């Protein structure tokens, strides 16, 4: 019984900590976002994603992003150079692990944030690789969902902030969405 209560407390705390709403834009910060399809991953969904700040050097290089339905995003990212660092999510009911982490190698592509704005990192899919004894993974670029669809998923969390206007403007630039 005690364990059950403890689990509920953890779940409640997790809910509080994973606030999806964007904070107001602070210049010269940018909004960075992308999408990760976890369909092939042992994790049931994407609930964690972090970036590593490469330049300028800092004692706290890791930026923990918000996640929602596969979209990872974080606001007020300072100008600098960044790499994707790590992502993960919880294992399923019969999974061998309660949480799965996947690390990007340090020798991987990065991106530079310059003038304030929106930075779409792309849409990706987790792909299994290696073997059962030596599990590995690849990340493959995918076309859908695209930038517009990713924005539409996080737009509700930008309400009342300056990000909302920028996201709506970007949706207009991208034009009409795919026919369903």
């Amino acid at each position, binding site marked *: 019984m005690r364990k059950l209560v403890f689990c509920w407390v953890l779940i409640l705390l997790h809910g509080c900590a994973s606030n999806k709403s964007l904070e107001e834009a602070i210049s010269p910060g940018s909004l960075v976002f992308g999408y990760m399809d976890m369909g092939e991953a042992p994790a049931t969904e994407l609930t964690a994603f972090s970036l590593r700040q*490469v*330049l300028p050097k800092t004692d706290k290089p890791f930026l923990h992003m918000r996640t929602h339905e596969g979209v990872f995003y974080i606001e007020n990212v300072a100008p600098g*150079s960044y*790499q994707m660092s790590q992502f993960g999510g919880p294992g399923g009911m019969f999974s061998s692990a309660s949480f799965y982490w996947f*690390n990007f*190698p*340090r*020798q*991987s*592509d*990065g991106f530079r944030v310059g003038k304030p704005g929106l930075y779409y990192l792309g849409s990706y899919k987790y792909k299994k690789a290696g073997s059962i004894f030596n599990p590995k993974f690849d990340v493959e670029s995918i076309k859908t969902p695209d930038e517009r669809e990713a924005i539409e998923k996080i737009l509700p969390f930008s309400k009342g902030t300056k990000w909302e206007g920028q996201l709506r403007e970007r949706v207009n630039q991208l034009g009409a969405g795919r026919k369903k």
Partner: protein
Amino acid sequence: MIRARVCAALVCALLAACVGPALSPVESLGEVGSDQVVIVGRVELLPPLAKDEQNFKNMVGTDMLRNKLLLITAEKWRRMSAAPERADYDNRIEAPFEQTFFVRSGSKPFYILLGELWLSAGDKAYFPAGFRVDVRPTDKAVYIGTLRYRRDEFFQFTKRDVVDDYERANAEFRKKFGSKYALRKALVTPVNDKK
């Protein structure tokens, strides 16, 4: 946490224990057999490796990895498109950055297939190589040049040069081994196997 630490330590211990020997550093020419040669060269990385870029915390046996590039060598050329396997580490050159190395090799030509830098137990950076080392049976000591790599902040290489720094290398060679044998200059040549 303890399990992760033990695993990290084991990875390194296993690497040191399971892979074959590296080309031995030479301290005196008496160690060099009649069918062997001293390979002299250097590796430079620009900007240099920062102290915090390698993290071997809680790992053992990391001397072969710390501030060193493992140059994977082979007698036959092949383009490496995947991480080296255990056997590939045989006869590697453990090249310390920014220092001239003197290692003992057989008197046959060989290839440098790839460079591997360990950043942590689970993270490595790979340096493009693809060089032929021209060793002749009559050689006693061969200078292969300085492999100079330039990188960006994401550890992607923007330039790779073979620099002729013979004067400095020869001065170090003479200081270390005397002038009994000449250091022949034979800078590595890139393998061009593009079709």
